[in-house]
């Protein structure tokens, strides 16, 4: 099986779907001729033609609205918003239009659009190239929300998102495009040799709504998504505590069963995300966990998140949750 980094596996998923389904059409800013500022669409225009893979004007609202129109008229558009920070001009189209059209039209129209967008920090991008706005979309009924973390799940989840008949917001942790990120900016490995970088060339899918058990343990359940999954992996090793590490993969609908099962086993839970804490998706999970697992919990649920502030430029390592903070939270759940 070929070893791919996440840029290559996303590219491969897009290529796979363009080859399989003539209704799949893709566009975005710098997406067509250039191949994307992160290179995820490199070579696709040459291979599939410029009427299927093209550049769009710089208009996120226009991209979303056009994708909406194509989607309700039988196409399966996959569009790129260059940075998740730039998705907000499209917010009205996504939240009020895409998310609601199936419902508002009594099921006569639906919108099978996938919106891919690189998200998260760790690239010295300051507050407009680093945000992780998943919670702004999980709060919108009608949208599915996916956050990949490895080359393998990026491809499988992206294929599922494209094949899904509902609108899907697909977050790609840009910090992990070329390697897993363990929280140390001075020691950044590539994906080469990583088991999750073994990616089949052929079509495969990972069902939306299914979590991945990245590590198996017995004393604590650590739940995360995106780049933070790898930070959690390092933190678990540092903590010396035996943990289940659940990579949520899909936030809406999330895999409650997997989480409940794990917490019934471990009795302890830490939720980690790099987005701000207030109204973050961790809050929704903590609330649901106490509803379902109250009698299994041996200690309070811990949350480790980004601060409730804009994302900084020079001091981003004091913002992003690192292995130390996560390890301390794991240790805290072990106190009696």
């Amino acid at each position: 099986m070929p070893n791919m980094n996440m840029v290559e596996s996303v590219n491969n998923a897009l290529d796979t779907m363009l080859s399989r389904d003539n209704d799949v059409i893709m566009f975005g800013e710098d997406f067509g001729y250039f191949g994307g500022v992160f290179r995820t669409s490199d070579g696709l225009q040459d291979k599939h033609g410029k009427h299927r893979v093209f550049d769009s004007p710089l208009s996120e609202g226009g991209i979303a609205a056009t994708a909406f129109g194509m989607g309700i008229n039988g196409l399966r558009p996959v569009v790129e918003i260059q940075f998740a920070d730039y998705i907000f001009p499209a917010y009205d189209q996504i939240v009020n239009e895409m998310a609601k059209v199936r419902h508002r039209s009594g099921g006569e129209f639906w919108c099978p659009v996938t919106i891919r967008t690189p998200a998260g920090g760790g690239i010295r991008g300051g507050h407009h190239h680093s945000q992780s706005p998943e919670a702004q979309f999980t709060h919108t009924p009608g949208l599915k929300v996916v956050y990949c973390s490895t080359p393998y799940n990026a491809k499988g989840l992206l294929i599922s998102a494209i094949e899904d008949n509902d609108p899907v917001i697909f977050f790609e942790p840009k910090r992990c495009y070329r390697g897993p990120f363990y929280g140390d900016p001075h020691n950044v490995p590539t994906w080469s040799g990583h088991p999750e970088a073994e990616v089949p060339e052929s079509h495969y899918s990972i069902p939306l709504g299914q979590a991945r058990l990245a590590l198996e343990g017995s004393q604590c359940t650590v739940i995360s998504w995106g780049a933070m999954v790898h930070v959690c992996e390092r933190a678990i090793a540092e903590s010396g505590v035996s943990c289940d590490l659940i990579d949520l993969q899909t936030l809406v609908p999330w895999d409650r069963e997997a989480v409940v099962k794990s917490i019934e086993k471990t009795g302890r839970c830490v939720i980690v995300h790099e987005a701000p804490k207030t109204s973050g998706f961790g809050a929704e999970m903590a609330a649901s966990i106490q509803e379902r697992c109250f009698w299994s919990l041996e200690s309070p649920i811990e949350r480790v998140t980004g601060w409730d502030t804009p994302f900084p430029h020079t001091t981003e390592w004091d913002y992003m949750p690192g292995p130390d903070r996560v390890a301390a939270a794991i240790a805290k759940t072990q106190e009696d």
Partner: protein
Amino acid sequence: MSEEHGADPLHIPDAPHRPGDEAGFVEWPWSPGDLERPDVDCDASETVALAEGLVRVLGDDNKSSGEWDPKLSTEEMITGLEHMMRLRIFDDRMMKMQRTGKLSFYMRSFGEEAVAIAQTMALKDQDWLFPTYRQPGAQFVRGRDMVSMICHCIGNEMDNVKGRQMPVHYTYREGRFISVSSPVGTQFSQAVGVALASGYKGLDEVTITWIGDGASAEGDYHYALNFASIFQAPVILNVVNNQWAISTHKNFASKNGNFAVRGLPYGIPSVRVDGNDFLALYSVTAWARERASRGLGPTHIEVLTYRAGAHSSSDDPSRYRPSDIHSHWPGGDPIDRLREHLKETGGWSDEMHQKLSEKIDSEVMAAYKEAVKFGDLANGPYPSSDAIFTEVYESPPWHLEEQWDEMKKWRDS
């Protein structure tokens, strides 16, 4: 059900030149003196020729002519030339710093130096500037200390925005240079609000703003034209058409390639100007300022230029356009053109130019050395990470105080 048509499935534009193509442009049909300078109280309908044509003052013979000649003194022109040279030398130094890991990122104004510099010189000190990342040169006109600009780009202890923004996202309130934001286009409609506030307060303040050809596809551009027109805001709305938005050619932003005419149906007097012609830019901006100042409302300007360099230090334009393309631009180079004009009129020489260039070079080197004393990107010292929590609100609410304490615990452990 519907039958299939026989035409191309979709019309997808392309750029006129791609890597490997021979670069070339159609020779401009416009010459200095072609276009009249209307009275400032003219109607939009009287500016059709100005929007469809191109206001030029500097001719191919390096002489200035026509009604739009602002008749600047030699001293004023030398000041403009010096600012443009300063910006280019500064940009080159900053790019070298980026390449050696001393800045995280950089964006040059290469080829577009005249835009912000000539236009800001044509304004008054009380006027507001609402720039993109491609107008940092305006700060030189407003007297900003170069050391503080470099400290911002490094994001060191002396960065006035405290390490929060990426390089080149300057804020300089003292010079009425409003904070640069990464999301493209947002400033354009905000500038209308700035202008309306000045009008409300009864002050003789004009607001100038810029947007790229690419970003004119954002809704903000259209909001700006409509609000400015409806409320007759004292604002100067510039579309800097440098032909490229990263890799996206202007053909993806305009079907007919003319941005200036878009102001006309909004009822806004509109002009297209040669953006590499310092004198034409100065003159058109001064005309627009007078209109705004006399309560005659907005002016819409297309500044026709060419992005000679990469979009940013993260960009590689050789992947999407011929490498030598900017050298074919009919508008030439803004610094060369003003230099040659000054030589033509007898106020300048190659020796004086060389001497000035060397003077600026030492000034930039000295500023750079001074700036890194306050910290560089690789080694710091950085602004305190306390700045993550300050100025999120006017004063931090309890939950930020709590998280701030937690951050300090981790940072100081």
